[in-house]
């Protein structure tokens, strides 16, 4: 084991069979989620662009789509589904939890309705 390897140096040789299979699978996941993202985005656009859908339905619908899309992006595009991301998961979800709870409570507290 040489002591000082440059971690950013380009890799030598061909990837193994196993790695090739993994890369292929990864490519497929990326493509599928990409198509899914386009689909979700166009659904969101359509629900606003079309006059047939009332905004009382469209707004919560878009928020739901946004939540789904953020989660998918975090896990598939930002690789939070991979091994060794436990701490990233913990920190992001606890941060989101606190942010959502705080913002929701704040909206109730300074809202028009007093409880």
């Amino acid at each position: 084991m040489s002591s000082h390897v440059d971690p950013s140096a380009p890799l030598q040789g061909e990837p193994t069979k196993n790695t090739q299979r993994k890369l292929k699978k990864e490519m497929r996941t990326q493509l599928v989620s990409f198509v899914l993202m386009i689909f979700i985005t166009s659904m969101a656009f359509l629900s606003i662009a079309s006059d047939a859908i009332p905004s009382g339905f469209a707004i919560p619908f878009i928020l739901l789509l946004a939540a789904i899309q953020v989660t998918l992006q975090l896990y598939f595009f930002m690789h939070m589904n991979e091994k060794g991301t436990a701490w990233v998961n913990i920190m992001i979800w606890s941060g989101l939890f606190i942010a959502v709870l705080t913002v929701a409570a704040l909206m109730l507290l300074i809202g028009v309705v007093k409880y």
Partner: protein
Amino acid sequence: MSYEKAQSKNVIWDWLTTVDHKKIGIMYLAGGAFFFALGGLEAILMRIQLMFPEFSFVQAQTFNELLTMHGTTMIFLAAMPLLFGFMNFIIPLQIGARDVAFPFLNALGFWLFLFGGLLLNVSWFVGGAPDAGWTAYVPLSSESPGHGLDYYVLGLQVGGLGTLIGGINFLVTIINMRAPGMSMMRMPLFTWSSFVASMLILFAFPALTIGLLLLMLERLFGGTFFAVDFGGNVIIWQHLFWIFGHPEVYILILPAFGIFSEILPTFAKKRLFGYSAMVFATLIIGFLGFMVWAHHMFTVGMGPVANAIFAVATMAIAVPTGIKIFNWLLTLWGGRIQFTTANLFALGFIPSFVMGGVTGVMLATSAANYQFHDTYFVVAHFHYVIIGGVVLGLFGGAFYWWPKMFGYRLNETLGKWFFWLFLTGFHLTFFVQHFLGLMGMQRRVASYLGGQGLESMNFISTMGAFLMTIAFILFLINIFVSTNNKENAADPWDGRTLEWTTPSPVPEYNFAQTPLVRDLDAYWYEKYEGDGKMKAAEPLGDIHMPNGTILPVLISLGLIIASFGFIYMVIPLIIAGLGVTFGSMFVRSIKEDHGYHIPVEEIKRDKEEG
């Protein structure tokens, strides 16, 4: 840069450019101590003013400025940097690392704090300090004339950036840089509580940043977020401030809890009672800290349901805190207790802090809070938790870790005088304030009328403040007269954790070989189950070190220049300042900086000498 080149520097340049976590820790301590003395001076001036009824020692306007700057300085510029000093110095040593994860960011965080603090204090000399209380409630703060509040907004924004950077740095360090064998549940409790405090910093400081940004836009650019006649809402500031402000008090107290959890087992010669319960309680306190902010606002008129929810959530915090108190007591139980100065601070902390906790539960009772709100009862409460908790922790930690940090032991006799004078002065100052508050004395008043039964207790309170000042001067004297106590500085207390395995003063690479951790209280385990030395987890070899750099100073300096530009609306100054900051960042980004290696011969020579 080669090893030889890295060594040949003059002293001032060395400290300005250092990225060594130990030197940055010491600079945090020095900066924090300076601001602590400054905040203490402001407190003394206020106490002199309140010594007699209708006394005219300082004017009401000056009094407002003193009380604002006392609170702001003590929280942001004294308590937090002092804790950051210990965290910087001790965490890498406790987890067996050679430095923090991002040494450059570490230096940047320190310089941002220092320049932010200095900027805030420049306001004294240019037409008056901020005068709206450390909470800076709008519309008082948004309408305050002069530039005092502008200094508050920009000084805290710059300093807060430094704190956020520091917090993220500690998180990454603790997650990624633990020595082999040091699992999360083998980490010393100071590291654990600093870890949770850093999480709180990460999640709480953005709220302050947003609040300060809104206030800055309001004051400097005529924003209307808080202007009711334009559809704004003044209550938003209070919420944003306390969403940050309540976690902030746990950011302060949790590392102090950690310090006590190091001191008590060491001087009771027992391992910490209920380690996993302590970790769990720390996490629960951190979590609940975000759920209770509105208990500072019971009298705002949020309605009975909201008040009740926040009251119950607040009282719930007493449960994990109680777990901690009982665990400390049971750590002492049956132990061979040594009454060193550090341990005296820990022992004095327990009853003092419990008193602050009890008044905390009283304040959490939202119905009764209508009586307590904005009286001296509140002042007494938070000084009991902050002095009785944080400050005693800082002094205890100073006596405990001083030999490791500076290579000499503080004088114990002087230390005990200091402890007893300080503890007496502290209780004398603040115990009577509970009753002043219950008798109706308002907090933040610049004076009071005679003949209402407030005179004698105010006088006693001021005498206590003098006693604390004398005690603190004794501590400063102790620092200078003890410099010859150099023997037995490496492990003077028969320590349990990894920092005591290093020589004092600690070499810049910390550990010649990364230690192998085999149990909780790793060093204690090796002392009693092994041969008294840490097993090495790697062969002796060259050690890679980061280069020092002046860029953190320049980045911070640029922000300060830009801040002056914003305060006085001088556009060229803003452009020049931001130019320096972003220019330095650009240089940092494109300049290759691989650091240097300490040759193995050098390390071997150190080992033979030590």
